[in-house]
């Protein structure tokens, strides 16, 4: 037992010193390896963090949203639809929602405007997201105007600015009272944007949705599960952008490993020949190559993953965010909450470290099995 340990330690020591001898080549190899792991792991972290954010946002979403469609476009829905839907068995509550988008020609941003009579959102007052506050350069207590279809602009006083921590959800948000909402958009009386339906027993949701559709053929019920599915697939591996980055990273890794696997340099072959001729066995040579592979790929994997963690969770993934976060003008400033999926990391490990180590062993095995003399001469 002690002898086996000693043998392993000696071979490891030899492996490290032989890596040290070819320092330049191995360092560039390590850098390349770290880069690939970094891109792959960053992507993994980024996507799982975004998915978690989306799941958090959707967690409290209503079970069912009812919109009205006319000629394939979403239309305002009459309030009376709500009363009829509330009488369907299994429906616990129907809430009318008033919301819309406001295009700010002053800076080209789009705001999400929601009407709600809350204790802080009295008439003339507004609660705004930090993105709105930044682009309009307003502070709490200051006034800002919004254009209306009439001649008079709507003057609003900033009552609250949502903290940066809610940016992903609330960066472009403006909450005003129902009366102000009607003035801002000249909103027709008796109509609302959509209806949020709560159903007590989730098993009854499809039946309720079918009943709403037959009660009002011009309505479109949207189930929460459908929204969740859409969000998941956007952020999922299938999501176009993610897949492209992943594919290119995996491809470059394959080329990299292939390059290693297709052959050894004449110098390395010579070295194996010498080792064999001074009495090393094939298994010793393979062990040496295994330790060499590990000495490169394990640190590369760890370093790549640590760098990716910092890149995504401390720097908010500057490399991907422009491509993967969609927002028009008001980019939310947000810190992603660290989520590390161990199983995904394991998959990454088995897709990179294991193939790489194998790729370094196979050509050495081929060389180690031929005659040492031939190996040294070739």
């Amino acid at each position, binding site marked *: 037992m002690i002898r086996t340990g000693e043998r392993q330690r000696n071979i490891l020591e030899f492996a490290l010193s032989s890596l040290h001898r070819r320092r330049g080549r191995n360092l560039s190899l390590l850098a390349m390896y770290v880069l690939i792991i970094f891109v792959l792991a960053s992507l993994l972290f980024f996507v799982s963090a975004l998915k978690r954010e989306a799941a958090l*946002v959707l967690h*409290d*979403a209503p079970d069912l949203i009812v919109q009205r469609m006319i000629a394939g476009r979403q239309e305002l829905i009459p309030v009376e639809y709500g009363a009829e839907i509330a009488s369907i068995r299994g429906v*616990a509550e129907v809430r009318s929602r008033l919301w819309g988008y406001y295009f700010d020609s002053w800076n080209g941003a789009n705001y999400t405007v929601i009407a709600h009579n809350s204790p802080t*959102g009295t008439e003339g007052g507004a609660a705004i997201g930090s993105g709105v506050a930044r682009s309009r350069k307003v502070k709490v207590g200051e006034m800002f105007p919004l254009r209306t279809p009439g001649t008079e602009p709507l003057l609003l006083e900033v009552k609250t600015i949502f903290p940066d921590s*809610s940016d992903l*959800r609330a960066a472009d948000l403006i909450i005003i009272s129902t009366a102000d909402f009607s003035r801002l958009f000249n909103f027709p009386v008796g109509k609302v944007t959509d209806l949020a339906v709560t159903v007590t*027993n989730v098993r009854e949701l499809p039946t309720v949705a079918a009943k709403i559709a037959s009660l009002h053929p011009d309505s479109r019920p949207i189930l929460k599960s459908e929204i969740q599915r859409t969000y998941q697939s956007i952020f999922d591996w299938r999501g176009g952008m993610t897949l492209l980055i992943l594919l290119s990273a995996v491809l470059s890794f394959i080329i990299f490993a292939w390059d290693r696997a297709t052959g050894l340099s004449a110098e390395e072959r010579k070295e194996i020949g010498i080792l064999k001729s001074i009495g090393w066995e094939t298994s010793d040579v393979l062990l040496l190559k295994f330790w060499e592979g590990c000495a490169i790929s394990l640190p590369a994997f760890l370093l790549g993953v640590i760098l990716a963690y910092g890149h995504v969770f401390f720097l908010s993934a500057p490399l991907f965010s422009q491509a993967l976060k969609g927002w028009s003008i008001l980019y939310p400033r947000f810190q992603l909450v660290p989520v590390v999926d161990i199983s995904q990391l394991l998959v990454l490990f088995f897709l990179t470290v294991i193939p790489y180590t194998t790729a370094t062993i196979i050509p050495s095995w081929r060389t180690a099995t031929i005659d040492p003399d031939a190996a040294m001469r070739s």
Partner: protein
Amino acid sequence: MNRLYTLFITVCVLWTTTVSAVDKGAPPVPATAKCAVCGMFVAKYPEWVSSTRFKDGSLSYYDGPKDMFSHYFDTARYTPGKRQADMVTLTVKDYYTLAPLDARTAFYVTGSDISGPMGQELVPFRGEKDARAFKADHKGKRIVRFNEITLQSITALK
């Protein structure tokens, strides 16, 4: 604090949270509670949880009315030493409102296309009108009352 409050309101407005009527009035089901008949964890199926309270104050949970009836008809098999007469209250949940309901007064729909964690179920309702509406919507076969249910009809359910 004010900011947090406003944020809370926003989230409510955006996504309309509504407290569901699950477990209203009844003690919450412990996460470790297992069905007295089939042994499955019942907290995973809040819309099906049924329970019985014995004379000595002990509680048994089930992951559906079907298992509750199995226990009711064969009490000693699942709780040795106890008899059917010891069962003081039997509680099921109304399908539409999920409100706890006395199992003895409920209307049950059999043969519907809604199945519970253990397959075919007796779906309980507080009112007969609800039961009729459910029977029409979900291709139910019969509406039965508590005293019409027998051990044979329970074992016939798959």
